[in-house]
């Protein structure tokens, strides 16, 4: 009997689940690394608050809204973004949270977005709402996945939502034919199908960013803090100059055979 795929049955099942639903959720692979990242976020947030003469400190990220108002939430977010991305070990730590899962879904030669992104969704904060969008519609690589990790339990309206691949594809086709002419119309047409993806602290989410996704106004009583970063196969095609290797992604896993090949091309004077 011919074997169609050399992937293990577990990997085949994982792949089918991912392709059908548009995401998978699993336990974090290195919980102590996750805890350390969380500590860094909390420490640096409180340092900012102290430096800016703000009263009180954040004791737990899920209650950050008790100390951080809409007036300076973006200042804090930008500060934390710069702090996290000032050291290379942040990306490495982040990758370790789901290293095996990423390799099972994407491969073992990888490139990772140059920056890790921070999202803070506090109750009632309209300024942090990320409208419905698809990364690939904005020019991102269709071959990338997003590793999304919460530092608080994300539930109901403080979670992100995603339209599954078949639905997103349908929306795209309706936009291409002119039936839907704006993101507002797409939003209205599919609003009833927005499904929050609930991810607890200690879990990781990997999703297909070709799917339409976003978040809504947080009407829960807790804040949601999460990081996200894009990962793609090292040799996946780039669809736009801005999303190419080097500027947007940097290589994180290059196997000897690939190095061997590019050195051979170089020796022969062949530029691809």
């Amino acid at each position, binding site marked *: 009997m011919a074997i169609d795929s050399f992937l293990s049955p577990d990997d085949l099942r994982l792949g089918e689940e991912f392709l059908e639903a548009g995401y998978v959720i699993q336990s974090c692979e290195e919980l102590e690394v996750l805890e350390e990242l969380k500590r860094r976020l909390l420490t640096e947030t409180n340092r900012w608050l102290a430096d800016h003469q703000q009263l009180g400190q954040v004791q737990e990220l899920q209650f950050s809204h008790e100390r951080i108002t809409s007036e300076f939430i973006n200042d804090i977010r930008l500060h934390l973004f710069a702090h996290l991305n000032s050291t290379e070990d942040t990306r490495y730590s982040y990758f370790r949270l789901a290293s095996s899962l990423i390799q099972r879904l994407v491969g073992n030669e990888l490139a990772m977005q*140059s920056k890790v992104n921070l999202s803070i969704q506090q109750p009632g904060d309209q300024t942090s709402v990320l409208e419905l969008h698809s990364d690939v519609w904005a020019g991102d690589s269709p071959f990338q996945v997003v590793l999304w990790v919460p530092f608080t339990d994300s539930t109901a309206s403080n979670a992100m939502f995603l339209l599954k691949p078949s639905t997103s594809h349908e929306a795209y086709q309706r936009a291409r034919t002119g039936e839907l002419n704006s993101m507002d119309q797409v939003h209205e047409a599919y609003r009833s199908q927005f499904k929050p993806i609930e991810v607890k602290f200690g879990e990781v989410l990997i999703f297909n960013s070709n799917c339409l996704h976003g978040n809504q106004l947080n009407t829960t009583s807790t804040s949601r803090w999460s990081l996200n970063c894009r990962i793609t196969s090292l*040799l996946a095609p780039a669809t736009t100059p801005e999303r190419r290797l080097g500027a947007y992604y940097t290589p994180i896993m290059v196997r000897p055979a690939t*190095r061997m090949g590019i050195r051979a091309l170089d020796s022969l004077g062949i530029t691809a």
Partner: protein
Amino acid sequence: MSLEAINVKGYTTPRTFSGFQIPIPLQSMAIRRYCEDRGLVFNHHVVENITPDTYFVLERITREAHLYQAIAMCSVGMLPTDSQHRTALLSLCLDQDTSVHFLFEQTVVTSQSDIHAVNELISLTNLVSGSPSRLGNFQYLSKYSS
């Protein structure tokens, strides 16, 4: 190599690089902003020739690299496509204690291993550069096309 009080020579090009065609004033502005953000001293930029696959101006500023402490340009894609030529120019800068900064890749070359890393990055990028580059056109846009 200390980054304090560093004079930076900006290098720009009228040619396409890395898939971009960026007006020279914008390239210069980006380099100037890069320098301001890092406390570096921006020197007026130079502009490469428009003739494809020539690097006359880059050759000159690398030969004169001792006049500055750093050269800055938008992207590694502005370097010669031939890796030996590229390596020779970057090495010449290092020999004169001049670092080379690439804004888009956020990379600074200060050593031979940095040159090696840049070469590898360019090789990898070239491997995947022949790619699906156009998403499907939206039909409704045809109403507005002539």
